[in-house]
Structure formats: structure tokens, C-alpha cells
């Protein structure tokens, strides 16, 4: 879903200039709301074993399809009588892990490719950018499915697949940013001062191009969580009995009418998480670099 990230990075919200980044971010009310929500979700995921009322994998067919607020099950049970609330909490672990790890993969790959292309220039640049173009010219959902068909699905493989199909936007951003920075005087000064390439990249180039990467990366987390649910919908997702919000939602489809709570809660969780992260991304863009544009 890198295209989504690219599209959103295109958008710029200008106007409120002059205040420091933190202040700008805190003035973005929706971003603050989003941050609170994401923090809550992350804490729940981290402390899942302490918070979850029961074992998310324990099957008890006698109590299957218990509606919410019946008996001991706050959010009801699923078709195998597993506690839905506990499953949602544990699923958050998987979905958020996939989201954040996939983001890391795409940020690292994208930054590396973008930096090298810009810094080395010439043939390296051409090759790297053509590879990026190849990635861009295939709809990422196609690439995602191709790769998913390749590997038997696990948390790790799904993460890698999503990460490896969403680094292209970051690579382009970073390359553009570094090319701009490279023209600035202080780089010349640093070079003249005998700074090594690595030092140049780590000390000067990357920090000065961090803003767009951070924004794109945030949006990538949201996209990765959504991507996981799409892959799940199309039958290439994370394996049972492990729960992710995506496969819970997918498995609930058959019970839309007979047990709607099964579909409503995971759907809400995905929407909540993705919206919140998108708002944070929005806020970050305003805060870090109001002039940000591809």
C-alpha cells in the first residue's frame, strides 16, 4: 500500500509556521487523540498476558457463539467458544507487530536504497531507481499476493512481504531529500574537512532527511495493518489458531448476521488503530516539516 503513503505525503498542510515542532504537534488535536489511542493499544498488546481475562486459544465448544455481556465473556465468544476479548487483545500483538515491523523493514530498505542512489549517483542511482520504478509500476496488492503465494504464511513472512512491497515511496523521498541536502554549503564544508562517506551520511545526510522518512514510516504502519487484513481476506493471511485483527475479521464474515459481534469488534479495532496512526502521521507532517512534499 505504499502508493497510499505516497499520496498522503503529497498532501501538505501549511499555515501554522514559526512554533517549534513539538508545539505544532500538540496543537494538532486529532494527532494527540491518535497518540493516546495508539499508546493505549500498544500497552494493551505488551501486557496482554496480564490484561487478557483468559487463554485466547482455549476451545470450549459448549459456550460457542456466546453474545457479548453474557456469562463471563465481556465481548462474547467465537465459533470455537474462545473468549473474544482475550483474542482481540492478543490479536493486537500480532497486528501491531506486523504493522510496526513491516514499517521498520520498509523504512530501512527505503532509506538505504534512497541514500545510496543519491549519494553514489551514476549507475548505482539508475539501477536503484529503475528497481524502484519496477516496484512502483506494479500495484502493490499484486506484488503482495505474488509474494504471499510464495511463502507459507507466518507472522515473520507476512511482515517481510508487506515491508518489502512498501519501501519504494520512502526510497524516492529519501533520494530527493538527500540530493537537496547534498547541494548545501555545509556538506561541502564537511567534505573539505575530511569527513568520511559514512560519517557524512550518518551525521549530515540522514538527520537532515529524517522528517519525511518519519512521516512516511508512520503512514506505512497504518497501511501495513490494513494490508495484513487484505491478505487475510484473500486467503493468504496469518495461520490459525493465532489471531490477528485481519484474520479475525475475515473469519467473522460468515457470521455477519448470526453473530455480528465477531465482525464488529475486530473491524473497529482495525479502523481505530489505522485512523489513529494516520492522524499521528498527519500531525507529524505538520510538526516536522510543514513544507513537506515529494
Amino acid at each position: 500500500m505504499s502508493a497510499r503513503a505516497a499520496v498522503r505525503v503529497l498532501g501538505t498542510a501549511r499555515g501554522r509556521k514559526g512554533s517549534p515542532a513539538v508545539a505544532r504537534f500538540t496543537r494538532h488535536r486529532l494527532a494527540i487523540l491518535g497518540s493516546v489511542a495508539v499508546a493505549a493499544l500498544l500497552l494493551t498488546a505488551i501486557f496482554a498476558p496480564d490484561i487478557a481475562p483468559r487463554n485466547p486459544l482455549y476451545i470450549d465448544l459448549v459456550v460457542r457463539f456466546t453474545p457479548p455481556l453474557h456469562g463471563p465473556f465481556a465481548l462474547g465468544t467465537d465459533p470455537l467458544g474462545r473468549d473474544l476479548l482475550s483474542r482481540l487483545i492478543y490479536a493486537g500483538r500480532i497486528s501491531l507487530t506486523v504493522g510496526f515491523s513491516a514499517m521498520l523493514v520498509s523504512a530501512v530498505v527505503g532509506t538505504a536504497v534512497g541514500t545510496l542512489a543519491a549519494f553514489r549517483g551514476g549507475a548505482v542511482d539508475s539501477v536503484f531507481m529503475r528497481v524502484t520504478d519496477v516496484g512502483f509500476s506494479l500495484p502493490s496488492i499484486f506484488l503482495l499476493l505474488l509474494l504471499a503465494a510464495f511463502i507459507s504464511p507466518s507472522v515473520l513472512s507476512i511482515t517481510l512481504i508487506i515491508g518489502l512491497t512498501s519501501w519504494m515511496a520512502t526510497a524516492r523521498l529519501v533520494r530527493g531529500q538527500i540530493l537537496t541536502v547534498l547541494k548545501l554549503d555545509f556538506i561541502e564544508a564537511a567534505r573539505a574537512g575530511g569527513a568520511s562517506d559514512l560519517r557524512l551520511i550518518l551525521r549530515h545526510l540522514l538527520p537532515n532527511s529524517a522528517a519525511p522518512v518519519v512521516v512516511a514510516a508512520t503512514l506505512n504502519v497504518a497501511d501495513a495493518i490494513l494490508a495484513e487484513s487484505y491478505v487475510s481476506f484473500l486467503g493468504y493471511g496469518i495461520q490459525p489458531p493465532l489471531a490477528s485483527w485481519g484474520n479475525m475479521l475475515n473469519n467473522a464474515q460468515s457470521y455477519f448476521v448470526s453473530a455480528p459481534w465477531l465482525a464488529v469488534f475486530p473491524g473497529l479495532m482495525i479502523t481505530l488503530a489505522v485512523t489513529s496512526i494516520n492522524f499521528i502521521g498527519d500531525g507529524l507532517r505538520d510538526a516536522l516539516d510543514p513544507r513537506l512534499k515529494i
Partner: protein
Amino acid sequence: MKRREFLLATLGGVGTAVASQALRGGRAVAAPQKGGQVIVGLSQEPTVFNPLKPHIEVDRGVHMCLFDALWRMNPQGQFVPNLAATIPTVENGGISTDGLQYTIHLRRGVTWHDGAPFTAADVEFTYQLIMNPKFDAATRVGYDGIASLTTPDPATVVLKLSKPYAPMLALWSDTYIVPKHVLGSVTDLNNNVFDTKPIGTGAFTFGERVAGDHITLEANRKFYGTGPYLDRVIFKYIPDLTVMFTRFQTGDIDVTGIQGITVDHFDEAKRLKGVTLHTGPTNFVEYLWFNLGRPQFQDKAVREALYLGMDKQSYIQRIYYGVPPVSESYLAPSSWAFNPNLPKHEYNPDKAKARLEEAGWKVGGDGIRAKNGVKLSFSNSTTAGNKVREQAQAFLQQNWKAIGVDMQIKDMPAAVVWGDYFFKSQFDSVTVGWNIWGEAGGDPNVLNWFGSGYIPVKSGKGSNTTQYANEKMDRLAEEGVSVVSQEKRKPIYQQIQAILHEDLPVLPIFYYVNIEGTKAGLQNYQQNANLVSNVWNANAWWWAK
């Protein structure tokens, strides 16, 4: 129920004398009314219209409407003539007493959709095409045992076999005859006009295909048999089963085709108004299919313990809503070869544990049993996305964990599981529904499945992916296909079923039940467990207004 029995009598015949008499006998049934269309929803898209090419079930349904075989198997398991005038038997002289010669008399006056007459030459051509090395035929198994096929006159076909082959009638019931005057003159046998404009003798003619969406068949007004009463049949492709059910609910489709309504929608479906639900048992058996090449499964005690440790009752009653009947055999009770005296399954985790202890499988520190360094741990795979089955897997996982056995779920897309992974025996175990009876067109033959000479990874042929090898089984299975008389075959197959139940190379779980819905006014819709598609008698369908 009486009405149903009556319908059974009228339909199978596709226009036999019996059928028309019964209709004229006119019990309480109104005369069929002409007109209207039926939209059949399918979860896979039919795309192969040459019935001799490799195809899948949904393709077969279209073939049944467009084409005819010499005869067809009815829901009672009897052959009913289509393009043949009679069914050859030893009694009527159609089959020689040594089982080596078949004389088939064809129905006269049948024409192809384009008006050309149907003759024995078409049957001969169909056989030749199957055996033609330049043609990508679906299979030549069975046909390769035919020594010669001759046509002494335009209405007679004579088959001579090199050795007796009991499933020969079944084979021809699934061999749809193609027109010589169309396919005989094409330059490329594999890709030609017949793929997009098929011409048959069936009750419906090919209308159009809107790729990815639907196929329209129009009534063949010159059809030789009963009907067709409908103006057209439309096969509508609906990729998602939940969506399919919804579309049936909203009345957009008239019939839910293969896989129809999944068990988890059954209760909802029962509450729908203005629809008729058809639930008939099929010959599909759900199995836990072991790969005996794995050391854990070579030990018979393990297979027995796993069967004992499986809570089959809850598996069926709860996860499958009690819809499918429990199975102990690869054959359904409706088959003439079914063995009703097989021991009943018993769920007894304690006995399972004892059996494993006794065989030397001891519980390790992690709670999983092991013997001689082999852990009692394995994976189970099936097509990803089959949700009810995924639930069953998770349930089994918990069942077997309780007896110290570790099963991991490793589901994959169909193209992966059922490719080399399955056929080259790379799996540990799979959960799968097979219709062994139907694979041969309605015959109990198991050679291909459990014969030791039919292990693909060893001999490059067959479907014995469990790698089961048992000399007694080999002998019986060979004997079973070389004897033609049903009476003599019956005890052989009963013994085969007993051996399979004793050895447990596969664990039988239940018989699939097809839950299908039709709009209430549709008459004569009838499930046929002996065929892969229930549009088999679409010629007799009609709308009561």
C-alpha cells in the same frame, strides 16, 4: 417423501419411456410449464467447455447441460441411457460373459446442436481423440485398456478390452461425446473454435460467456429427451461463499451451486422465506490423511491412538452443526459395495494414552511424546480459507494435545497444497474431502488410492499419496477390478473396507452433506450424489407459477 420418490422415478431417465409414462400417469403433479430462466451461483468460474480436456467440477456441470455421455448415473446409483439406447449387461448380451467385449446400441434420431446427425462415428472419434497423443486429454486411465473400438454400423459401437475392467461402464458414464464433424477438421486439437463455441447433443445450447461473470445456455428445442422447459440457464460466478449466500438471500440467484450453502449458514438459511433447501448426503468423505512415509505415522499404534483421541462426536455435532453423518468407510451407505459392519469409532483419550505408552511413546519434558528420538509432532494442512475446516483443525489440535501429541496447522492456498506438496507426499498430514467412489464415475475401485504400485513419489503414477502398502490390499484391489459381476465384487470391497478400518492409513470422519438452496417455485431440482454437479437434470427443471 412420497413426492420425492416419485420425482426420483421421473427424472433420471432424461426422457426414457418410463419417465414419460410416469409423467402421463399424472399423480398430483401439474404438467411442467415452459419458460423462464434459472441463475445458478457458482463459487468457481466454469471456463473449460471441451469435456475431454482437464476440467474442474464446475466445468463438469456445464458439460452435463451441453453434452451427453452414453449413459448417466442416477441418484440411486443406476445407469440410465442417454446417447445409448440401452445399458449393456451380461444378461442382455451387451457384455460378453468373459467381460472382454461390450456391444453398445445407440439411440437413433439424435442431432447435434448444429443439426448434424449423431452417429457411432462420433463415439469412435471421441475415443480416438482421448488417445491422440497430440491432444491434452484429461486422462487416459481406463481408456488405455480398450484394445479396439469399432463401429459395425452407425448405431452400434463395439468395445474390445485387453483384460476385464469392471469400472468400464462407469468410465463411459463420465465420457461426454464430442462431434466429429466439428473437431475432426480443426488444425489445432488443443486450441480451437470448440473451446469458445462448444456444440453438443445436450438439452441446452451454448449462448455466451461473459468472462469472469457468467455463462448463458439456451434451451435446445430439438433435444431428444425430456424438456428442456426453461428458456435458459445462467451460471453466475460469485467468488466468495459468504457473498453467494447473501445473493441467494436477496433473490439474485435461484440456485446455489456446488458447495452451495456452508454449514455455518444452515440455520440462517432455514429461516429464509420462499426458498427450498435440499440437503442430501454425498459420497465425499472428510479424511485426516496421513503420510505414512513419516516415521511417526509408520507406527500403527499412533494412528489408532489419534483416532481414539479424536472427539469425533463434538467435531461433527458442534463444529459441523450435526449436519454430516459420521463415516467409518471410504464408501457411502448408498453404494452397493458399502460395508455396514465396520466397528464404530470410540472417543477415549485414556485408552489413546495407554495405547501410546504401550507402544513406547513416552511424554517428554515439553509434554509431547517421543520414541527413539522421533517426536510425536506433525503438521496438518488444508486449503487456506476453508473456515469451518480451520475451526476443526484447531479443535483437533486441542484434542491431541491432551494425549501428548503436537499438531501444527499449516494451511496453504489450494495451488500449493494440492500440487507437489500433496502429490509428491511432502506433507505430514492433510485434512481433505475425497469422493473416491465418484472419481471413477461411481465405482468402489481403490487401486489408484491404496495400491502400493500407485504411489506417485515412487512409481510416477496413481494417487496413493499416503504411501500405504499392504500386500493383501493390493491383491484384493486388483481382483476387485478384474471381476465384472457386482455380486462377486461386493465381498471383495467389504473386505477392503475392513482392512482400511483396521490399518487406518487415513482417518474417516464424516460424509459431506450438500446443502443447496433453490427458490421455492423451482420444480424437479434433485441432488445426485453420484455426479459432481446437481445441474445434471436441468432439462427437467421448470418454474411453477
